[in-house]
């Protein structure tokens, strides 16, 4: 083995690492470093601005004693779960319908996708109008003659979180549709034809052959949807402002309110640590199984 080839070799193996190094460093510092920084603050007595002292677990104790936090945490479970499941279902079915050689498919696809392009700062106002019983759907249906029709979820503390789901699905399901449609287009047509020849019905073919083959689609969609669900902030602020009362508060708005509006950075940091831990607990096993599978 001569020297030059071994140095070439080592450059060859080093180069890819050098290329990803910036991303690696950036991830380490700006994501994990900041998580640690945040963890530190959650053990400090920080109020309006960060303070780097040690206050033990007091912020966590305050957090667990805070009713509003538990409302927020529960809301994230309800909202996140429904949002992800409904987006996946709606996206999948719309994609299946569009895949039936529909006329004007391009236009319809764009219609399903466009909500992603709008910022929720104003779209939230429109949804607020549409869902408001005195202005929107309820009033319209009543004016059509159905006097007893009632649709007051937005103003009902127990139901308001579902309107957030509705608006969220409106905004994001188009993207899932695009992902699923792409997945459907990637299915080998010969397999479908063979199954048809064997006398299988289309619903059966979808259930047994096509949808199971969309696993990777669901992986991408799930990552994107989870990311959207956890970060839902504009959506809540614009649609319900966390109300009625604080019935639709979620951890992201809770954390923001305490850290920035109320000058309780320590408590806000504790809330975000809980949020991060919950996410890691859910995502890591999933990632582990998915990435290991791909390796084989």
């Amino acid at each position: 083995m001569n020297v030059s080839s071994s140095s070439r070799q080592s450059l060859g193996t080093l180069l890819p690492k050098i290329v990803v190094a910036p991303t690696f460093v950036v991830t380490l510092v700006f994501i994990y470093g900041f998580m640690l920084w945040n963890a530190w603050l959650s053990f400090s007595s920080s109020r309006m601005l960060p303070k780097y002292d040690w206050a033990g677990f007091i912020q966590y104790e305050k957090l667990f004693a805070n009713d509003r936090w538990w409302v927020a945490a529960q809301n994230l479970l309800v909202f996140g779960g429904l949002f992800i499941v409904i987006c996946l279902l709606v996206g999948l079915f719309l994609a299946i319908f569009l895949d039936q050689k529909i006329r004007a498919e391009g236009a319809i696809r764009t219609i399903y996708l466009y909500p992603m392009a709008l910022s929720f700062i104003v779209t939230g106002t429109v949804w607020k109008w549409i869902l408001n019983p005195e202005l929107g759907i309820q009033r319209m249906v009543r004016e059509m003659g159905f006097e007893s029709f009632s649709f007051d979820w937005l103003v009902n503390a127990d139901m308001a979180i579902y309107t957030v789901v509705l608006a969220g699905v409106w905004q994001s399901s188009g993207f899932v549709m695009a992902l699923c449609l792409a997945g459907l287009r990637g299915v080998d047509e010969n397999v479908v034809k063979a199954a048809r020849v064997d006398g299988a019905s289309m619903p059966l073919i979808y259930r047994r052959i096509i949808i199971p083959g969309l696993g990777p689609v669901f992986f991408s969609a799930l990552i994107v949807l989870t990311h959207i669900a956890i970060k839902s902030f504009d959506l809540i602020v614009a649609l319900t402002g966390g109300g009625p009362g604080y019935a639709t508060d979620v951890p992201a708005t809770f954390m923001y309110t305490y850290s920035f509006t109320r000058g309780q950075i320590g408590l806000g940091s504790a809330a975000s640590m809980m949020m991060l831990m919950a996410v890691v607990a859910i995502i890591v096993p999933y990632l582990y199984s998915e990435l290991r599978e791909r390796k084989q």
Partner: protein
Amino acid sequence: MRISKIGLSVALALGLSMSAQAADVEVLHYWTSGGEAKSVAELKKMLEEKGHGWKDFAVAGGGGESAMTVLKSRVVSGNPPAAAQIKGPSIQEWGEEGVLANIDSVAKAEGWDALLPSVVSDVMKYNGEYVAVPVNVHRVNWMWANPEVFRKAGATVPTTWDEFFVAADKIKAAGMTAVAHGGQPWQDATTFESVVLGVGGAEFYNQAFVKLDPEAIKSPTMIKALNTFRKIKAYTDEGAPGRDWNLATAMVIKGEAGMQFMGDWAKGEFTAAGKKPGADYICAAAPGTSNAYTFNIDSFVMFDLDNKELEEGQNDLASTILSPEFQEVFNLNKGSVPARLNLSMSKFDDCAKLSSVDFVSSSIDKTLVPSMAHGMSTFSAVQGAISDAVTEFYNNDSVTAEAAADKMVNAIAAAQ
């Protein structure tokens, strides 16, 4: 080659930033629309006449919440603006962080102590020295009424809470909404503090919302106030939750609703709709509060900067804000009254004149109290705690007044 291209675009991106700060006075504020924006533009003009550049840094949203987030980030990054719109006890919080500039020299030279009522100047000082300058005084305990609605219902504009429910019943019976309400936490709190002031009086109000005395908060007076507050809910309409305050005002303007509890900024909506005070709408103190006054004062705080060249600009800005010309122009636009005493009110409308007179008299009678709902009476953490308890009580009928009072006490303790 490609790498150098990447490098080039990075360099290009970095180069974009080289428009470094000139010696302009950067002002962070959250007045971005309509009359408010015009008023700030007036301030800019006056400052420029004194030879300083104005760098506008406007961040609207959430009654200043977004602006505070931005301000904190800027201070943490070591790059604060020259001046920022901060009000109430928050000024003390910022003072404790040691980031504010002292403008006491201007204040001494111009004799601010004589120009401002002590209730106002106390808020503007940290450790006895001026760090902030007031722009205006809003009165929060207003009730806006549509006389046409009252006439149709055969009701009279109430001056006590007992009268209020009589009138509300009549309006409701006449098929109209008695109270136009926007069910957002800050609006709930705005109505609630007027109820507390009306039911308990100014001394009780101070005991509960300024001194945060647990005895007062758990007292029968507070329970009565809570129950009165909840009783109002029956007179609001179904669409109230989440409604913006201005849409509630529109209901009064259109004659769909009889009354609204809101600060004097609501006047702008009436004016914009071409309505005249006295004839088309009535501004009255909330029931039982005519001799008291809940104030909400906007103010600007100066930050301690490395660049000492800007000190003069900051001082001139402070002096301009308190000048009679600006106080008049600004408050005519905004619906509030000047913070500075003894200005001519001749250009103002009747509501503002009443507000100005009541401001001075309540200050003498010691019935001038800081607005809890607008963050004038406590630190933001405590205000948030009270507001949570109030809005939860109002929206959730299964919470009793006693439980809400207990919760308020506990939440205040946890927030301190």
